[in-house]
């Protein structure tokens, strides 16, 4: 009965049109339709509270690989909920060095010139192998780590844990890592709450198979960019000078007179820690083909707290590899800088009460600084079968702030039925009103 292609889909929207990630996102907590006007069950769902934090320990974390600076033990873990590393042998705790201070990443944005690249953000060597081998110092066995999806591995024989801590020129090792703060149980609770608010019209198979415990912690690769730029825009704006109506009672029309201005604006600005997805797959925000915009939405992170790369933080988590270089990402950066500039000048054009049509824009990027960083994300995924391989839905939790966003597949016929029912009621009211008028 749940034939997925039963109801015809509603008109498709363009990839970059309204309702896409190219659209300026709505303010948090806003709905396009006033919930008060909707039937009770739908209203309750919309008005249910948003996810809250529940702080409990995660069982995910395993042994680390560094040597304890105090006793030399290799049994080191990331202390959940903190940025600390802790020695399991002598309980020594220490904090990773914050890259912000070690490398001065927070300073001098207002004097940036040219392209400054941190070592971990250098171009990826095209022929570098993803597999790296180590000789275990514990037992002598060969241990292989696949840097496509992991940065640590455990020796099968002696349980010694390895991590890739040296920067190898294949782009696998970033400059910095931002450790998970949100623990697994907390992420599970947030995901459960997110879905509980979206059950009425959720795909039945999704609800049946829903197991938020299957969430996995993933370090995703980003480029964190500082930039100094100037931008200019030009166009036309209109100010209303007169408003009047013409016509008789039944055929009244409103007319406007307006003054037309040529408008130019310039602004110089700096941007601190703009995050850009540095894997081609994650950076593809085409909402027709994937739900990566969900992962994009849980940005930003408190990247100021990122610590110098240390694979110990990654034990027990999976990771994705960066495959985009700075030159690939530059167009996206410029696009975002232009959007920022346009947002900055908006306030200066308020007097144009009939709006402004910007026609030209110009961007001068004076300087940029690029740092490659792993950011922590809890991901729950659900594969919805369908044509072209179906669609992978994500529910994502920011591993630092707990911000949660998701894509829940809908049962189309149920949603259409509800919409048509409400539409029919409205139509009945409209007809009744017409009959009374006649």
């Amino acid at each position, binding site marked *: 009965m749940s034939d997925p292609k039963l109801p015809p889909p509603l008109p498709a929207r363009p990839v970059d049109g309204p309702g896409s990630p190219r*659209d300026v996102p709505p303010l948090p907590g806003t709905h396009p339709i006033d919930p008060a006007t909707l039937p009770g069950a739908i209203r309750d769902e919309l008005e249910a509270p948003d996810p809250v934090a529940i702080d409990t320990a995660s069982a995910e974390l395993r042994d680390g690989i560094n040597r304890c600076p105090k006793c030399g033990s290799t049994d080191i873990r990331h202390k959940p909920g903190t940025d600390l590393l802790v020695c399991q042998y002598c309980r020594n705790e220490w904090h990773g060095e914050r890259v912000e201070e070690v490398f001065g990443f927070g300073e001098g944005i207002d004097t940036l010139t040219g392209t400054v690249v941190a070592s971990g953000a250098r171009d990826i060597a095209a022929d570098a192998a993803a597999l790296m081998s180590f000789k275990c110092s514990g037992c002598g066995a060969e241990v292989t780590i696949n840097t496509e999806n992991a940065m640590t591995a455990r020796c099968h024989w002696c349980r010694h844990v390895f991590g890739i801590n040296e920067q190898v020129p294949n782009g696998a090792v970033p400059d910095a890592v931002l450790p998970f703060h949100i623990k697994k149980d907390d992420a599970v609770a947030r995901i459960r709450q997110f879905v509980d608010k*979206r059950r009425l019209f959720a795909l039945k198979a999704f609800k049946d198979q829903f197991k938020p415990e299957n969430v996995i912690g993933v370090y995703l690769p980003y480029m964190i960019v500082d930039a100094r730029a100037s931008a200019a825009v030009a166009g036309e704006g209109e100010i209303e000078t007169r408003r009047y109506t013409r016509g008789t009672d039944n055929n009244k029309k409103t007319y406007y007179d307006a003054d037309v201005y040529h408008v130019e604006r310039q602004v110089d*600005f700096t941007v601190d820690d703009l995050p850009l997805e540095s894997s081609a797959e994650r950076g593809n925000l085409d*909402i027709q083909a994937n739900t990566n915009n969900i992962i994009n939405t849980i940005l930003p992170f408190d990247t100021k707290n990122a610590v110098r790369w240390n694979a110990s933080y990654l034990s027990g988590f999976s990771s994705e590899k960066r495959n985009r270089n700075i030159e*690939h990402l530059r167009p996206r950066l410029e696009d975002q800088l232009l959007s920022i500039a*346009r947002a900055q000048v*908006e306030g200066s054009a308020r007097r144009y009460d009939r709006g402004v049509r910007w026609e030209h824009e110009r961007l001068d990027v004076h300087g940029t600084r690029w740092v490659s960083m792993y950011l922590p994300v809890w991901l729950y995924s659900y594969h919805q079968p369908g044509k072209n391989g179906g669609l992978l839905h994500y529910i994502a939790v920011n591993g630092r702030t707990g911000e949660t966003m998701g894509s829940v*597949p809908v049962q189309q016929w149920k949603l259409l039925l509800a919409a048509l029912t409400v539409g029919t009621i409205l139509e009945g009211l409209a007809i009744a009103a017409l009959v009374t008028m006649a």
Partner: protein
Amino acid sequence: MSDENGLWLLLAGPAGATALYWALYRYYRNTDKSHAFERETTIEATPVTGTDTKVGTVKGTQATRIRGDNLRDYRARVRRVESADTGTAQDDRRDAHD
């Protein structure tokens, strides 16, 4: 579409149904969400400067807004003008969407 006999009221049903469909669809799928970098990034900007020159008037239009109003569509790109000092422009944007 005539507003003569109030027949436009008959659009209430289809319009309401479509609006509700898309509102709920977006609530579940969140296709309209993305990182609001324009307001969630630390930005330091100098005061905006510019010029405003009156170039004409419009008389008796029925349009409530200027044609092509994009003041708030920050992400809608318009024609990129070559910059004088760095030479960064359109031709640099080869794989903006991959």
